[in-house]
């Protein structure tokens, strides 16, 4: 059986109906475990004090903010090449989730930055590219809303997803590319010497998995909504013609 068979809306709805309750329960439980572990059972950092606890929401939300755009890019390319409606609708469904995650990363970063850097905001490469990524999310959502024909909207937003991917990549690597600004490098790395300490590492990885599951759950739920909205539009158009 080919993976493309799940691009059939009926098959997608049937499968997602079975999977969604389990995914939702798992992401809720893991999110609770991660945030309780991170907030209540981790020590203060010797330099950052209790503000280090912000890492358990800031880092996972920032990772999802970037990777949601990567997912939208892949789904958009599938739409442009193979014209599968579910992929275009999945990209549309992911945008509000990515926008909220970007906003969480920006807000928690500002709240963390004020006591540590002495400022809420700096035109640092990573912060600035994140702000631009957030504006791209808003533009992407607005473009979908502004165009009546869903296929034209999918085409144009797919092009926007390709253009915006430059800023998704920059958001990830800005601190390394320019090697300047206030923001530190990665908190997690293949090199163990660059890692946060183990006492923060394990709850952080748990929080990242919880955010990934939350993202997948919400994207599946919102894709189902978009499929229903598309069918509703088609039925109403048929009624109007008769």
């Amino acid at each position, binding site marked *: 059986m080919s993976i493309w068979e799940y691009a059939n809306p009926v098959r997608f709805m049937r499968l997602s109906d079975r999977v969604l309750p389990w995914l939702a329960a798992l992401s809720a439980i893991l999110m609770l475990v991660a945030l309780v572990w991170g907030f209540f059972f981790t020590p203060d950092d010797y330099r950052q004090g209790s503000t280090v606890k912000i890492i358990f929401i800031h880092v996972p939300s920032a990772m999802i903010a970037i990777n949601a755009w990567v997912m939208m890019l892949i789904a958009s390319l599938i739409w442009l090449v193979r014209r599968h409606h579910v992929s275009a609708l999945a990209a549309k469904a992911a945008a509000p989730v990515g926008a909220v995650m970007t906003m969480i990363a920006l*807000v*928690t970063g500002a709240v963390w930055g004020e*006591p540590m850097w002495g400022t809420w905001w700096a035109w640092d490469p990573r912060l600035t590219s994140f702000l631009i990524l957030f504006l791209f999310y808003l533009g992407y959502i607005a473009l979908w809303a502004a165009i009546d024909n869903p296929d034209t909207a999918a085409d144009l937003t797919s092009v926007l997803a390709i253009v915006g991917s430059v800023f998704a990549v920059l958001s990830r690597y800005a601190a390394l590319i320019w090697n300047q600004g206030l923001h530190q490098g990665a908190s997690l790395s293949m090199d163990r010497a660059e890692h946060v300490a183990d006492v923060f590492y394990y709850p952080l990885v748990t929080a990242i998995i919880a955010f990934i599951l939350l993202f997948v759950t919400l994207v599946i739920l919102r894709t189902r*909504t978009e499929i229903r909205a598309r069918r509703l539009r088609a039925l109403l158009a048929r009624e109007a013609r008769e």
Partner: protein
Amino acid sequence: MMPDLGKYAVWVLSAYGAALVLIAALVIQSIWRDRKMARMLAEVEMRSVRQDGDRG
């Protein structure tokens, strides 16, 4: 049970509060919109089936 957050309590609680409010709003809006769309679609499909039946 509440950990001692020291002089940074306001910052840590603000970050967690803002994040939880935004996540809760996103989850609630997603569920609300899905239910609304399912209800509207069921109504229109029902109407459509009835109309097809009337036409014989």
